């Protein structure tokens, strides 16, 4: 859950020491970044490109002696901005990502459970599409494990605004999904 973990709090001073730490960071952050970008509405290929670019920029940033504080938030911010630059209309494409065949992710799901899960995903997808772009972004960053402060840094908004937006978005989802 978002509130639980900050598993990526690496001692960032190690990063500039060599490619090994950067590779570790890549392994740990690649999937959360991809998940965020794809859920945001980018295609798989676009998301891969954005992640590659983000790590390339990180490499240059570190090589140039840039700040090593909160690299996770930094990477998400870079990836978020890259995604916006590449595809300004990704909020519209959000429907494409959520509309289609979302199957159950649990491998041991029975057919009945898989059908129920699929229906639930479709309902959740519809509810997500009814949110504002800011609400979606806040929720997806929260689902990526970012703290409210980090989300605020990624989106360029105040932490209190993030708190209000997350609260509002979760309530909307709960209401629409009859949870």
């Amino acid at each position: 859950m978002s509130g639980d973990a900050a598993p990526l709090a690496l001692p960032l001073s190690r990063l500039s020491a060599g490619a090994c730490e950067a590779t570790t960071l890549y392994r740990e952050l690649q999937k959360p970044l991809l998940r965020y970008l794809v859920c945001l509405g980018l295609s798989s290929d676009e998301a891969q490109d954005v992640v590659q670019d983000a790590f390339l920029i990180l490499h240059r940033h570190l090589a140039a002696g840039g700040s090593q504080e909160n690299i996770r938030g930094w990477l998400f911010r870079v990836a978020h901005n890259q995604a916006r630059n590449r595809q300004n209309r990704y909020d519209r494409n959000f429907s494409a990502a959520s509309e289609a065949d979302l199957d159950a992710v649990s491998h041991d799901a029975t057919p009945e459970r898989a059908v129920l899960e699929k229906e639930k995903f479709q309902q959740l997808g519809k509810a997500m599409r009814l949110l504002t772009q800011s609400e979606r972004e806040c929720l997806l960053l929260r689902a990526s494990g970012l703290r409210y402060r980090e989300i605020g840094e990624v989106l360029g908004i105040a932490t209190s605004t993030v708190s209000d937006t997350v609260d509002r978005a979760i309530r909307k989802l709960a209401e629409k999904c009859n949870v």
Partner: protein
Amino acid sequence: MCDFSGRLIAWLDRELPAEEAAEVERHLENCAQCRAGVDAYKRVSGELDAYCDAVIASGARRAVPRWTPVALGAGGVAALVALFLAIPRTQVAPPASHAPQVSAAAAPVVVATATPAAVSSIQRVHRRQAATPVSVRDANAAPAQYHDVYALPEEPMIQIAIPADEMFPPGAVPEGIHFVADLTIAPDGSAERLQLRPRLAGFERRTTQP
């Protein structure tokens, strides 16, 4: 609505200061409505996580080579059609050793009864022309070279090299990709149809090369 309801999600996310969090926890012990709210927010958060996993899983399944839309670009096809239409028709006349061609749609299906040895004697013809059955009525009496009308050509009759950069914007086609153009020639020698097929250079085998 309970006064604490606005702080439940922040508490769930551990975003409240310690004192405020303790206050919420004390309240939750006595407020069933807020406890139900917390349970609902937990569930919806869990479902959102599962939903995100499903979205990225479905995205991976649907992933297609990114150059596919480029390969189907109408601009490139139009450029090639224009190029082929500019070719003098005399260049694509069928070889003299073959019987007159008929269109594939109208042609009767004839089962080839060729012997293996006859394969090497067939002359090079365009693929579509080769697939067009020739009127072989008596397989036993016909000369060997007339039997293998379905044999694939050893190489295209016409080969035109067009750099990918001429058809597509620079960088749009990844390195190592080239296109094979299948040109269908009508019986009168005119270009009837053109189809572009993207190929990975490393995986294209010239099996017909002698």
